């Protein structure tokens, strides 16, 4: 979970590993404040997102994955295009920090908007708004690359 959050956020395995390691070492230092397994899980998610944001800022990662560099899926690919997953991951890496965190917690961790709000300390309405806007943006970017629902259905 922790490594995956960092990896999807930073899109860099080495950095993700370093950040994930720091998160676990942070947990080790704060073990006495952890009250239950659920609390540990919440703590890990929250700190993983925060540390990933910090690392992303430090490394100025975002400009390195410009939208223009995102590979366009080939025109005659099959249903469930294997490139589409990579395209989506790269498109998510270009989102600003907050919507990126919201999308990762929603689709990787399968959290509902209320749970995401708790982790990121923001109102549920804001989480929903980030989700809707990010989905609309991704649809638009994918449509521009010729990826549409009809093609996915086949």
């Amino acid at each position, binding site marked *: 979970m922790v*490594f995956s959050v960092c990896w999807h956020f930073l899109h860099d395995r080495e950095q993700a590993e370093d950040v994930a390691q720091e998160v676990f*070492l942070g947990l080790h230092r704060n073990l006495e404040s952890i009250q239950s397994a659920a609390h540990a899980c919440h703590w890990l998610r929250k700190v993983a997102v925060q540390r990933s944001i910090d690392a992303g800022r430090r490394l100025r990662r975002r400009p390195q994955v410009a939208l223009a560099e995102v590979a366009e899926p080939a025109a005659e690919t099959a249903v469930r295009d294997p490139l589409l*997953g990579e395209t*989506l991951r790269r498109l998510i890496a270009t989102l600003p920090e907050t919507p990126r965190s919201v999308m990762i917690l929603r689709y990787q961790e399968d959290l509902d908007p209320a749970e995401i709000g708790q982790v990121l300390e923001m109102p549920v309405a804001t989480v929903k708004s980030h989700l809707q806007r990010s989905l609309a943006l991704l*649809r638009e970017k994918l449509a521009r690359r010729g990826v549409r*629902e009809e093609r996915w259905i086949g």
Partner: protein
Amino acid sequence: MDWLEQELKTALSREGPPAGFAERVIREAGLRAGRPVYRWPRWLAAAAAVVLVAGAGLGYREYQGEVAKERVMHAFRIASVQINRIQTHVREVAR
């Protein structure tokens, strides 16, 4: 959940850490636990707090003294003006 959301779930599925990650974290935790951590002595922190509070208290008392002095001087000035007026009035009546 529509097609895009399903694709996102697949694309953002959990990725496992590289091999040996857990061992590296445990080793690093052990190394860090062995390192001496420099902490400020408690008495030094307490002394700094006392000095800070005492300094602030003295500064406040000094300020209060200045305010009181300024008030007394102002009262003297008013009294002086009043005495001058009375003196002038007495002189005029005496003539």
